[in-house]
């Protein structure tokens, strides 16, 4: 029982990070139809910038805030100078642009920072909390709580504000959105900035547990992508559920089968989803009446 609980909590923790990455994918995909493979680099930036800024003597909370701002600026620049000029290009072209941006950001990070692994101190110490026999790192609560706050905040924004509804409207029907006067370019910029912030927050929360380096983004982006696919591309609820499921799958797979194949599970999920249910768990089937 204690073992099961241990796997459950570590699965949920890592799953919460995948969920945030998947949410970033979802937000940009909804606003622009682009699958942004530089999403993982936002996570990397969150962790790395916090590490280096706090190493320069800045208090951790401020360093984290700076990291989020840096990621948002990079996200906006990515939209302005890489995505916006290619407006109207095919989806494949746009995906290749984001892959290029991801490689570029990794290269710059390698030069500006370094190639080492880095750690952040846990936000509330390293004394494990005992929950029914499972030893839980306090940082896990930060990850789970932080992810919950981001998810609820995003939900409130999309459902309760006119600007949030404009994002949903742009996702649903771009032409109609422009006809009612929604500036869809601004909405796209907002989505890139918001995704960058969500990614960076995920990176900051998880770095005390998993360490960070210039290239952590690649694997996280793929896992987050698997989560978004599993949940149904473009569905925020699906992204969260998909992320948590993949985290749990990894944790239980590594615990009960073999940790050697831990990273393989996410890719297995991508393949199974593509073969068996390309629309994902919560994917919208086209049932609109005409």
């Amino acid at each position, binding site marked *: 029982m204690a073992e099961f609980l241990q796997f459950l909590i570590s699965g949920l923790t890592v799953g919460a990070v995948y969920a945030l990455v998947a949410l970033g994918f979802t937000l940009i995909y909804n606003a622009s139809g682009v699958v942004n493979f530089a999403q993982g680099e936002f996570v990397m930036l969150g962790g790395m910038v916090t590490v280096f800024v706090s190493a320069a003597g800045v208090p951790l909370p401020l360093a984290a805030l700076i990291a989020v701002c840096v990621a948002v600026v990079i996200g906006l620049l990515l939209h302005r100078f890489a995505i916006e000029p290619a407006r109207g290009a095919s989806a494949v072209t746009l995906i290749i642009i984001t892959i290029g941006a991801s490689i570029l950001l990794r290269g710059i990070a390698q030069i500006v920072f370094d190639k080492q692994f880095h750690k952040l101190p846990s936000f509330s110490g390293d004394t494990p909390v005992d929950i029914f026999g499972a030893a839980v790192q306090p940082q896990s609560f930060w990850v789970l709580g932080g992810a919950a706050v981001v998810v609820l905040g995003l939900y409130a924004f999309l459902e309760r504000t006119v600007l949030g509804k404009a994002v*949903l409207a742009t996702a649903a029907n771009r*032409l109609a959105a422009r006809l*009612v006067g*929604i500036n869809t370019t601004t909405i796209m910029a907002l989505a890139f900035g918001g995704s960058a912030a969500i990614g960076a927050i995920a990176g900051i929360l998880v770095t005390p547990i998993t360490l960070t380096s210039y290239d952590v983004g690649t694997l996280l982006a793929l896992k987050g992508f698997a989560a978004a696919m599993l949940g149904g591309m473009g569905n925020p609820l699906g992204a969260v559920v998909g992320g948590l499921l993949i985290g749990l799958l990894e944790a239980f797979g590594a615990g009960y089968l073999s940790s050697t194949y831990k990273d393989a599970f996410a890719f297995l999920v991508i393949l199974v989803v593509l073969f068996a249910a390309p629309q994902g768990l919560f994917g919208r089937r086209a049932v609109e*009446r005409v």
Partner: protein
Amino acid sequence: MLEIKGLRSAYGRIEVLKGVTLHVETGEVVALVGSNGAGKTTLLRALSGVQPITGGEILFNGEPIHRLPPHRRVDRGITQSPEGRQVFGPLTVEDNLRLGAYRRSDKDIGSDRDRVFTMFPILAEKRHLLAGGLSGGQQQMLAIGRALMGRPKLLLLDEPSLGLSPLLVDQILDAIVSLRKDGITVLLVEQNASAALAIADRGYVLETGKVAYTGAGSALLADPQVKAAYLGIE
């Protein structure tokens, strides 16, 4: 109010509008009729700024607007109910109407919404349902209501009767006539030419990207050439 001079627009190399010149005066209902592919929808999209133009100019109240982005034209008072309705399917009826007033921040948004509900009572009944689940006719009412929520001076209506039952067509046409009483100028695109010309002050017949005939709605209805070519009446 609206003056279009030599407007040209193309999809790639195919020119769809080949120099359209027309005007709409304040308070008029003007019908734009013509066969499939004549360029009617392209013209309305160019007016709203969602279709690029390759030549000519658009004057609204004497000022050129053809270089303004779509949201600035909404600010000026031009809104559109597009062809195929294009409601925001995953959003509720009420949210669709609210987004119609996206550029506004005044206090009358609620009372304008209630006026749309008075005009189309079925929408009030379904206000909390998703727009994607409405019937075609209800979506059409929603699209018109959404365009009205922008407080238009000039309302562009693209094929409001397409695919609707005759009863609903009458209801929509009645609504359009009542808009005129509210002081809203209407530019109406219709394939159902006889119905459109019957309620219009004036009409234009568009033929492969150019204005072929123009005149009072009743005059066009009576014109033997227009009748033969567009109204399917011998």
